[in-house]
């Protein structure tokens, strides 16, 4: 049974097609990774789920269901209330507000009352003790890694059943990226499904149980993460493993498709 089912989703920004007819399943309780290079449509996929395409004048067709309930046609706040919360790319903490107020803002979309909110806050402080220490500092003064923690903690305040993470390791030192990865696992272990969008395929494939590879708006590969991690194409393209034999064996058509050519329109 899949928690989040995306079927035949196509999204365009004006004349630009960002996603073409893609289908993705995020199973309940697991971590699902979505990989791909710049412009592959990863962020667009998350925007379609969180219903924030409108901010970028994007329009989509296709169906998105969360626990059987269609999400298309909902407003962003209703998606949050349904239990799907996104941590945006680049963290986007409210820099002029204190850490504590950022966390309060995260709880505003939650269904639960005061009790649930304080339980969520205790949980966030347990996951990220630094957020308790810096509660009264302005969020803009935190380091990049701490801001990522704050962005994740803020999303957890809404008590999500499915957490959408957009490039959590972006711009972080390797050690910090590894810590964030650990936390993602911890969050998942406590019962929250995770959809993880990453350029850092090594981290993502290690964490995830299933993975999808997006390429110019289409699903190029999909399957169990360990199988994908072992596949030649993923190793060559996303893991930076240079394997002469594998490169020679690879489908030449796939390679020609990736070469740059002069635009003809």
């Amino acid at each position, binding site marked *: 049974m899949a928690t989040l089912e995306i079927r035949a989703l196509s999204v365009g920004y004006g004349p630009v097609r960002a996603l073409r007819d893609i289908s993705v399943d995020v199973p309940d309780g697991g971590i699902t990774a979505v990989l791909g290079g710049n412009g592959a449509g990863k962020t667009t996929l998350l925007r379609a789920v969180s219903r924030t395409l409108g*901010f970028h004048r994007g329009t989509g067709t296709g169906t998105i269901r969360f626990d059987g309930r269609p999400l298309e046609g909902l407003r*962003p*706040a209703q998606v*949050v209330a349904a239990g799907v*919360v996104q941590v945006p790319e680049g963290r986007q903490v409210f820099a002029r*507000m204190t850490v504590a107020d950022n966390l*309060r*803002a995260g709880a*505003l*979309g939650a269904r639960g009352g005061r009790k649930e909110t304080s339980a969520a806050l205790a949980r966030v402080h347990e996951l990220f003790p630094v957020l308790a220490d810096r509660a009264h500092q302005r969020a803009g003064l935190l380091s990049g890694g701490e801001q990522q923690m704050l962005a994740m903690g803020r999303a957890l305040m809404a008590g999500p059943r499915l957490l959408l993470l957009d490039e959590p390791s972006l711009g972080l030192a390797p050690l910090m990226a590894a810590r964030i990865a650990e936390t993602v696992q911890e969050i998942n272990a406590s019962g929250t499904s995770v959809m993880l969008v990453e350029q850092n395929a090594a981290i993502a494939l290690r964490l995830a149980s299933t993975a999808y590879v997006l390429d110019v708006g289409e699903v190029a590969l999909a399957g169990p993460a360990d199988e994908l991690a072992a596949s030649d194409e993923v190793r060559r393209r996303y893991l930076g493993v240079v394997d002469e034999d594998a490169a020679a064996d690879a489908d030449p058509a796939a390679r020609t498709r990736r070469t740059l050519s002069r635009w003809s329109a």
Partner: protein
Amino acid sequence: MTTFVELLLGGLSIGSVYALIALGFVVIFKATEVVNFAHASLLLAGGYVTAVLHDDIGFWPALLVGIAGAASVGAAIEFFVMRRYRGSDHSVLAIVTIGVDILLITELTRRMGTDVLALGDPWGNEVVTIGGVTLAQTRIAAFLAAGLLITVFLLAFRYTSWGVSMRAAAENPQTAALMGIKLGRVSLAAWAVAGALAAVAALFLTVFPTPGLERATSLAALKAFPAAILGGLDSTTGALAGGLIVGVTESLATGYQSDLSFLGRGIGDLAPYLVMVAVLLIRPAGLFGTKELARV
């Protein structure tokens, strides 16, 4: 010296009223990034409702209805006009508010005609004299009421969930939406609050020594523009400082007009704008405004 103190206190009092107007202006700007040129007509609408009703239902109920009325007019502008244009360029929206302002002012002027309407306030033209300094009761009431409202507003802005959602939406609307904050509701609340504050300001702009509510009251309300701008359009602290600066400048310039006769008459009306220009020359973002941070 007595004159100076009188002028200074009078200026602070009227300045606090300007601060009320400027605060509403800033709240709308923060929540929606729209410069609201219809603000003066919100004020006029609130004052008009109070003026019409006070004979029948008494001053305090009439004031409450006036405040509620101006808040509803503000909310209605947001709901029926601004919301349709959401996502448009902010300068387009600002021009839309000019259109709304013309409509409202025209209708209100048609109803008021050339009358000067009293708002039926309980203070009349009583004055208080303390240590040789004479102040109108209305001025003291204005200062206290504005101070109280501003304090309540700032506390709410800082500590309530409403304040948190306002600040979050002001800083980053898209991320606020991702957190489940309803942007439509935030913007509706901003317009309603601005309307309510403007209605209170309308009362104190029209009491003694001003003759009453008339068409020109909306011009007095325009002085909140330099107040908001010189304080920094996106700063609540700036609105307060700006309001007080404009009030004191205007009061002193008017009071010492005879000593400034080489500048011609009416320097009091002009002085706030001169201060605004001077401040902007030194600090283009206003005293407390956020410097424009362009992100690529």
